[in-house]
């Protein structure tokens, strides 16, 4: 499977990649985007099976990326990894069709719990 990791922090993208490996998902094809616009472009051009996105990013926020994809009829599995987690954000994410919401800091166990059902 192809997984797109979108986060404007290079450090956090590396942590997400490492945590995916630690949780046993390192064999998947991992690609990265450094802001919201790049995430949207790559989600269309690269046709990933899963998008793991930060919320607060330059150009487009994660929720805007998700809404743009859904508005264009793209139903890629999409979820958030963010340090911010308010009830409004969670319900906005669910309303837009997000599949998961992971709060930073996270552990490999949390990744396993969320991604095992999705990635098998």
């Amino acid at each position, binding site marked *: 499977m192809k997984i797109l990791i979108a986060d404007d922090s290079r450090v956090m993208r590396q942590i997400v990649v490492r945590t995916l490996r630690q949780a046993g998902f390192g064999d998947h094809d991992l690609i990265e985007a450094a802001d919201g616009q790049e995430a949207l472009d790559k989600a269309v051009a690269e046709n990933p099976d899963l998008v793991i996105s930060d919320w*607060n990013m330059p150009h487009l926020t994660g929720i805007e990326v998700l809404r743009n994809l859904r508005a264009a009829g793209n139903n890629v599995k999409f979820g958030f990894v963010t*340090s911010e987690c*308010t009830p409004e954000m969670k319900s906005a994410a669910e309303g837009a069709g997000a599949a998961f919401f992971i709060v930073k800091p996270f*552990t490999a166990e949390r990744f396993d719990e969320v991604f095992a059902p999705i990635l098998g």
Partner: protein
Amino acid sequence: MSVEVEVDESDLAEMVEQVWESYLDPEGVSPLIPTYDENQPSEVHSSVSITGSWTGHVVYASSRAAAKRAAAAFLAMELEEVSEEDMSDTLGELANIVGGNVKAMLPPGAQLSLPQVVLASESSARYPNAQRISGVYGMWEGEPVSISMWQVSTDNKEEGA
């Protein structure tokens, strides 16, 4: 109008503990040991601003050695491989993680800024009309690290000259 902040020192301490458990000390061998010294020195710092239902700053400050060690832990590198950019990005992410967690505990209607990093002492920073309201201060493998919250006063009273 400002609201009473609902994030206290024990909340901050819990967030910091989670950062240590997840990224900086997953083996549980080098925790942040509290010093309760709000005047401990720092050589680098990062911050995020929160505006809205609560207005202020969340600041992460440490020695360069502690920032380097944090970058090595975040990026899974050897200490000697850590560049200035690695250190700077790591400091930004640390402020972002703690700031995001603080924001989650505030009343609805708060906005979080992108992080700012300054490779200079926290004492070089000036937060206009802001007052430190809580903080966690400690030593990590003998190096100072602190996380503090600064509330901006939203009344426009003139201060004495």
